[in-house]
Each structure stands twice: as structure tokens, then as C-alpha cells.
């Protein structure tokens, strides 16, 4: 088990927060995130983020207070004939953490340039 300093963000966690910021109040949900973060450029699904990796990262971000999670209305999902999705929206703490991580990356880049 790897222990990390509180507030440290992994690249995947930064990418998730970035997506959540872009989506704003609409939030993000599991498979849409996996598609958005697909590392495979031809988009045929081979680079989709693994279930365990994605939901572990989402769980950590939620526990850290960077994301709020809410299950969508059952009626909405039923009307579309699918299971309910869990929507994640970024919190103020999440935005601050993302900015801090971005500034750290920028400083590191400047130092190594």
C-alpha cells in the first residue's frame, strides 16, 4: 500500500478533476469519464481507464472533499431504461487542489527547463 502526502494528486486524479471542472454543475460519471480519459488516440476503446483504477480514484477524491457525489434520480434513469449513474461535481476544495497541482507542475517544468 502506497501512502501519499495529503493533498497530493496523481495524474489520473488531476485529469478527473479537470474533467469535472469542465463539466461544471452537470458533473461527470463513470463511463463518460473513462471515455474522456481514453488514452488510445484512435478511440476504439482499448485505452479506457480500468474500472478499479477509475473508481478507486473517484472514491479518494470524494473522501478528500474534492468531489461531491450524488446518485441521479431513479425516475430519470428508468425513463432512459438504464441503471442510475453516480454524478460527481467538483467542490471549491477540488478547484483549489487542481490549481495547486497545476502550479506545482509549472514550477517543476520551469526548474527543469
Amino acid at each position, binding site marked *: 500500500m502506497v501512502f501519499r502526502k495529503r493533498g497530493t494528486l496523481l495524474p489520473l486524479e488531476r485529469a478527473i478533476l479537470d474533467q469535472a471542472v469542465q463539466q461544471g454543475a452537470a458533473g461527470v*460519471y463513470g463511463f463518460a469519464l*473513462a471515455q474522456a480519459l481514453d488514452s488510445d488516440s484512435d478511440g476504439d476503446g482499448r485505452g*479506457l481507464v480500468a474500472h478499479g483504477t477509475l473508481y*478507486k480514484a473517484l472514491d479518494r477524491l470524494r473522501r478528500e472533499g474534492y468531489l461531491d457525489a450524488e446518485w441521479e434520480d431513479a425516475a430519470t434513469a428508468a425513463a432512459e431504461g438504464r*441503471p442510475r449513474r453516480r454524478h460527481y461535481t467538483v467542490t471549491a476544495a477540488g478547484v483549489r487542489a487542481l490549481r495547486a497541482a497545476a502550479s506545482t507542475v509549472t514550477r517543476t517544468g520551469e526548474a527543469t527547463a
Partner: protein
Amino acid sequence: MTGWGASLATWWVRRYTETAVPAERTDRRAEVAADLHDHYAAAAAAANGRSPSRVDRQVAGRVLRGAPADLTWRLAREAGPDRVAWHLSHPVTLLGALVLPMVGPGVFVDSARDGAAWLAEPVAVAEAVALPLHAAAVAVAVVAPVRSLRRRPHRPSLVGARRTALAALSVTWGLAALWRFAPGLPGTASTLGWAAFGLSLLGWAALAAAAGLRQVLALRKVPS
């Protein structure tokens, strides 16, 4: 949600959340179910000639690549102090989980103890790791209320029996190894311990094979 990939993902999420905190178990299973539905729906909607088996392979890949993260997530969730009381009243889960970290160092210590000189230090380290784990397995079996071991599980009897056999493996391995490593204890005690371990292993293997066979039959029934 169709296909063997979805069946594999559903089976796996059920396994690693089987004894998790109920709210976490429900949430994780529901999230994966929604993800699987969306994955298959997106594949069906895409007009690129993607075959169903290809989507199944994608889903299986996502399951396999994510399995280490699933396990570390579960371990991290179980490390909280609020889970100690639960494990003491439901010892089968903890005892089952102790089998793997006990057997590896235990076998290494046993086989390399009188080996080359350079092995002495690794053996000492492995022994320092192994013996507390063995003692922990025995201690959990002693401390945990006997009634919880006898409690009828709220799950299919085959799965419950397999998990109980796994717990028996853990306890008998711990007992046998403690007797074997501790000088001065009678050899017959160790022999009895190993015999009990062997019987537990046979029982667990038979039950695991039966559970695996049932799973394969269930997968074959999934409409493609």
C-alpha cells in the same frame, strides 16, 4: 448489459465487495453496473462494425487491469479502526485474507532455513514477517467468538462453505507452522496441524472447483 465481459465484471465486483461495508458495497456494485451498461450501449450505438466479442474483451481488459486497484482499495478500507470489531465478529474474512501473506513467507522460511549462508538474512526477515502473521491467525481464531464461526451465512451455502474452508486453512496453517518453528513443542502436535491443514486444503480445493464450475455454467447461459 450483455456478454461474458459483463458477467466477468459483475462476478469480480461481487467477489471483492462481498464482505465490504454495506453502503460501500452497494455503491461500488451500482457504479460498475451503470458503467457496464453505458459501455455496451456506447458500443452498440457506434457504427464502426465493432463486434460484441471485441467489447467483451475490452470490458475484461478493464476488469483485469483494475483488479490490483480494487484489491488495494478494499485493503485500505479495511484498515480503519472501525473495522476491527466487525472482523472479530466475522473472523472468516480476515482469516481467509491471511492465507496468502502467511503461506509465502512460511514456505520460504521452511525451505531455506538450512540453505546457503547468504540466505540467512532473508530467512530471518521472512521469519520476522511470518511468525506474527501465524500468531495473528491463531489469535483471531481464539479471540473471535465461536458462535460467529458457526453462524449460518446469508449467502449460497457453497460460497459460505468455501469461505469457511479458507478460514480453516488459515488457522491450521498458522497452528502447524507455529508448532513447527517453535522448539520444544511435541512433534505430534505439528504433525496433527499439518494433517488438519491438508484436509482443509482438500476441502477448500473441492469447494473452489465446484464454485468455479458453477460460475462457468452460469457464464455459458448468458445470451450473447
